[in-house]
């Protein structure tokens, strides 16, 4: 097991003009379930390859447990990886697949130790019944479980990288694999880095999440913190469905603008669709006009709708059990507004 430390690592592909990763520093604790979340092209895979030793950082150092592994090849870093599609040795049985990493590079484990280790992992992943089957003859779900098992089987594995491991799995059993992963991570206490573009996967798996965009880490924190208090507009926009609403300061009434100004002088105010209430309009409230309504379902006996509202030139979404019709003017009371500085915009809608 190991803590991982990335110190100011950056990476530029050979011949590329722009760096793929800007200098990144990151600490991941020993035994932590960590997640790297970002859209495709954000630099997730590059960062993963830097960790697994396929790529060497252009600048910066990588430390595993305070040992500088920057120049070490992947095989000497004591890590394992689970890929998007299950990678198995197809001519071997499931048990042989699980045992394989224990038999390479003159590993000193005895036969009995190997069998013991394989059966421990098989028990953990509940795949004991398929151990004797050919790796070719099992379902995709089972294959990915075996691939995870192979990643975990080495007792000296310090880090398991998971590269969108649920991509190939049917949606209906994704949650099962996710729960298995989470449980195994907790029980074995292995450091895991889970790379995904799927916010649900990242936020449910990880103790801490890093959100990546344009080769930078925008924010690192607990899922709760990243969701509730995004440090950048992109993070607020990227997480949640729909994402956070953003409004320029000047659509708010004067009294509110003064309150916001005391908290860091923001240019833009963001709030989540579920952290606002719709009431009668008043001079102390943000005011908007309802221009769409979509019924989401019922909660505690009341119909909950997602309202689209027009505030000045911007559109916002608010989830509310209140009942309004299109064209109604309503007051929007914000429970948890978050202020942003315009200069910190990153992602699709900024100048990069």
């Amino acid at each position, binding site marked *: 097991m190991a803590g991982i430390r990335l110190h100011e690592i950056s990476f530029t592909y050979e011949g590329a003009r722009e760096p793929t990763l800007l200098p990144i520093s990151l600490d991941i604790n020993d035994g932590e379930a960590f997640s790297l979340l970002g859209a495709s092209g954000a630099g997730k895979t590059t960062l993963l390859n830097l960790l*697994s030793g*396929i790529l060497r950082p252009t600048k910066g150092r990588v430390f595993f447990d305070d040992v500088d592994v920057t120049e070490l*090849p*992947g*095989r000497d870093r004591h*890590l*394992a*990886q689970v*890929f*998007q*599609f299950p*990678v198995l*040795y*197809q*001519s*071997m049985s499931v048990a042989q697949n699980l045992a*394989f*990493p224990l038999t*390479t*590079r003159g*590993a000193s484990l005895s036969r009995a130790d190997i069998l013991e280790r394989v059966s421990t992992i098989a028990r953990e992943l509940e795949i004991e019944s398929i151990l004797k089957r*050919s790796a*070719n003859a099992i379902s995709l779900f089972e294959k990915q479980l075996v*691939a995870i098992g*192979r990643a975990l089987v080495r007792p000296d594995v310090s880090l398991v990288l998971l590269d969108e491991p649920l991509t190939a799995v049917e949606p209906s059993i994704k949650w099962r694999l996710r729960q298995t992963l989470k449980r195994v991570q907790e029980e074995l206490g292995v450091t895991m880095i889970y790379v995904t573009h799927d916010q649900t996967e990242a936020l449910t798996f990880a103790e801490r999440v890093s959100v990546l965009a344009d080769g930078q880490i925008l924010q690192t924190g607990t899922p709760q913190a990243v969701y509730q208090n995004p440090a950048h507009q992109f993070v607020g926009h990227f997480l949640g469905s729909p994402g956070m609403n953003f409004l320029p300061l000047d659509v708010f009434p004067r009294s509110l603008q003064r309150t916001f100004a005391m908290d860091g002088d923001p240019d833009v105010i963001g709030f989540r669709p579920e952290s606002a209430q719709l009431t009668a309009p008043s001079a102390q409230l943000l005011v908007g006009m309802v221009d769409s309504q979509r019924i989401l379902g019922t909660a505690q006996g009341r119909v909950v709708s997602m309202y689209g509202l027009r505030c000045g030139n911007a559109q916002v979404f608010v989830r509310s059990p209140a009942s309004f019709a299109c064209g109604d003017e309503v007051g929007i009371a914000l429970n948890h507004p978050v202020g942003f500085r315009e200069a910190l915009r990153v992602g699709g809608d900024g100048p990069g």
Partner: protein
Amino acid sequence: MAQDKAQDNRAWLGVLPVMLIVAFSGVIPLMTVVNYSVQDILDFNTRFFVGFEWYRETLTDPRFIDAFLRQLGFSAAVLAIEIPLGIVIARGMPTQGLRASLLLVLLATPLLIPWNVVGTIWQIYARSDIGLLGVTLNEMGFAFNYTAEPLHAWLTLLAMDIWHWTSLVALLVFAGLTSVPAACYQAAELDGASKWQVFRHVELPRLKGVLVIAVLLRLMDSFMIYTEPFVLTGGGPGNTTTFLSQYLATMAVGQFDLGPAAAFSVIYFLFILLFSWLFYTSVMRSEEDS
């Protein structure tokens, strides 16, 4: 019900042209050979039915047995060298860029040369009086003479076949290797697999399909080899490089022994079929077992 049947019959009309073409170009010529093989043909009008006489005679003919054993030896040597060599070449090839393209063109070149030209190239190349290879070897102190020494003739033939056909194996394996996902190599690297283990457990299982094709093609082709040894050694010295096809051609075209030659052809054909079938089913069975 009756309607269904009428439709079925019309469908036969649809495949009739194909059946006619196949019969005209394949079945009837083959059956003609089978027909010849059970007759003693003296001239166009005089022929006798002799049953399996020619088959019995061919299978007990020491010259046939010798040619057959030579053929087996040649095919075995060709496969034993070309398949591993092709794999080694394919694994060593760059996968991208100008160098990869140039190498592919270079590899494909021998495959584009007609058989008799290949024979002629090597016939001259290996000559001990004027050939580059022959003269060089002699200058280096080896008394190389493929027209007199059976071993030299064999080595020259093998070298020629390897020169001509290893590319085919290499190209097939190269195509097979490009279908191995990068993640598989990466996983093996992180698992600490040795180079041999990567080949054995990552590449070989995924090359199985193309290797079956490569072995079958090289087996059948080498078993039927005719033009190149005909041009290079003419079957000599003595009969030491006379393979089945050449013996057959001598019989059928040279001596016009149509009956025995036809029996020979049928046996020859059945052997190729048998070897290919044995190889294919054994590979496919091992697939099911694993």
